[in-house]
């Protein structure tokens, strides 16, 4: 079975955000780029399934500028077989445009499973997975924390409010991965060496017309400085008093 894993390059979660001169995008200066953490769970799930089935192919699909190839290589180093890079110079395209471009590439591949992270930790949109499902007309389970394949049926537990929703979906399907699905492997030295030789096919990304217009990107209003109520147990009565009388939250 062919599986596609969509991966996105994002700023490291340690990044202190600075705004670019246009007032609408992230200043990329000094940013360390990493693979979206949720995408690592998606890659791991696809690799584990391939290993279990003892056959098949895992294809990495990523959209972005030339710089995303380092992220693609790290996905290949984990064990994916090959990659398709949908090239664009557009900075931070909106999720609908991205989903359109990914869907076009996925249709050609006709995979049994399409994997994504539940959201990217840059724009936190959580849109592309369910958009792909709608565009491809395939069943979808978002925010998977467990996965099992039983014949041609995927059994997934989804992290929802108040518990885990159990879902069964027939293949071909789209699944987005949440933390807890698995423990992503580290790339071995052998894997990193092998990744250098794995093919990355480049294609232009067809993003279409933008569906969102970014008006501004700003740093959040900083919180007013708080105060230390006191030290140790002696501070407790005063803490309770301010929570009741000043903050009025208890």
């Amino acid at each position, binding site marked *: 079975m062919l599986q596609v894993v969509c991966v996105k390059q994002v700023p490291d979660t340690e990044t202190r955000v600075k705004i670019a001169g246009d007032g609408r995008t992230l200043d990329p200066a000094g940013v360390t780029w990493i693979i979206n953490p949720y995408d690592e769970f998606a890659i791991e799930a696809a690799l584990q399934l391939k290993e279990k089935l003892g056959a098949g192919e895992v294809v990495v699909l990523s959209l972005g500028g030339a710089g995303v190839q380092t992220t693609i290589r790290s996905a290949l180093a984990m064990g994916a077989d090959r990659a398709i890079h949908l090239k664009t110079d557009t900075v931070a395209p909106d999720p609908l445009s991205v989903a359109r471009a990914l869907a076009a590439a996925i249709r050609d591949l006709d995979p049994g499973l399409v994997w994504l992270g539940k959201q990217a930790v840059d724009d936190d949109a959580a849109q592309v997975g369910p958009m792909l499902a709608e565009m491809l007309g395939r069943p979808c389970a978002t925010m998977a924390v467990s996965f099992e394949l039983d014949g041609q049926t995927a059994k997934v537990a989804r992290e929802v*409010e108040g518990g885990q929703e159990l879902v069964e979906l027939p293949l071909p399907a789209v699944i987005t991965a949440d933390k807890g699905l698995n423990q992503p492997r580290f790339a071995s030295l052998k894997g990193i060496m092998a990744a250098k030789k794995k093919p990355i096919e480049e294609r232009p990304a067809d993003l279409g017309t933008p569906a969102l217009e970014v008006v501004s990107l700003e740093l959040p209003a900083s919180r007013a400085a*708080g105060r230390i109520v*006191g030290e140790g147990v002696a501070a407790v009565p005063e803490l309770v008093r301010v929570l009741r009388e000043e903050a009025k939250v208890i």
Partner: protein
Amino acid sequence: MSILVFLEQRDGQVRSVSREALGEATRLAASLGGPVTGVCCAASDPGLAALGDAGAEKILLAKHDTFATYDGAGYAAAVAAAVKASGAKAVLFPASSLGKDLAARVAAKLGVGLASDCTALSADGGRLVATRPVFASKAVQKVAFPASPALASLRPKAFAAVEGAGKPGAVEPLAFEWDASAPRAKVTGMAGAKGGKVDLTEAEIIVSGGRGVKGPEHFTLVEQLADALGGAVGASRAVVDAGWRPHGEQVGQTGKTVSPKLYVAIGISGAIQHLAGMTSSRCIVAINKDPDAPIFKVADYGVVGDLFEVVPALTEEVRKLHG
């Protein structure tokens, strides 16, 4: 401007996040004009007429046997039909796990943009502008919508619900077309249901524990304070990664972003990824033995001290208060 609101139900109950979305639609309608229409997907009417009080003038009920639980393609077909029937120029969804999934499907179906997990909406010269935290709240983005309808999902607890101001709304059946025989995801049950406990993202009060709690066995301290306050339990990434607490409780950049009215951080130093997930809380309390911990920079009230002494004393005080 006609506004459509998706009303989420679970187990035959309209969820409170739906009322929050209705409340915001009512406020927007005051500047953009109305009417406000609701749409609900369900197997049977979950008492929708009562939502007139919460702001809906009319509610379209998309009824289908399979709609007791979430069905992505089916719900999306119904909401798209409701957009057409109501002539909506804006569609609001709760940014719940269901709402985020559905909103993206509807956006793809209609070929329009969606602003996810918004914390504010405004009418800027007749056009809708959505404010949404990005980079786990390390920055705030404002977006506008080139095409109509504009779609937005609203972060739970960021918008106030309207209660009891209006009249019962008219509930009408919604006609929609959808092929239920196509391959689809079927909900087969729920696991690990926390017996009526409120979810982190929808909790009014959250008590979170970090590495300072020193081990999973000591989390009873955190749980007891949360119980006394009527809140939910959260955790830092360190303790989730150590396996002390389940993933669902993680607050921060690779966990949940929360905005409760009270957030109590116990033994949490305040890594940037954690702060990103909770700084939009209304009131933050930090209890930590290290007076230089970064958490004190965002806390409204701090107590420097041994959490093993301070937390039980605080729990006791709160219990006395609530008698």
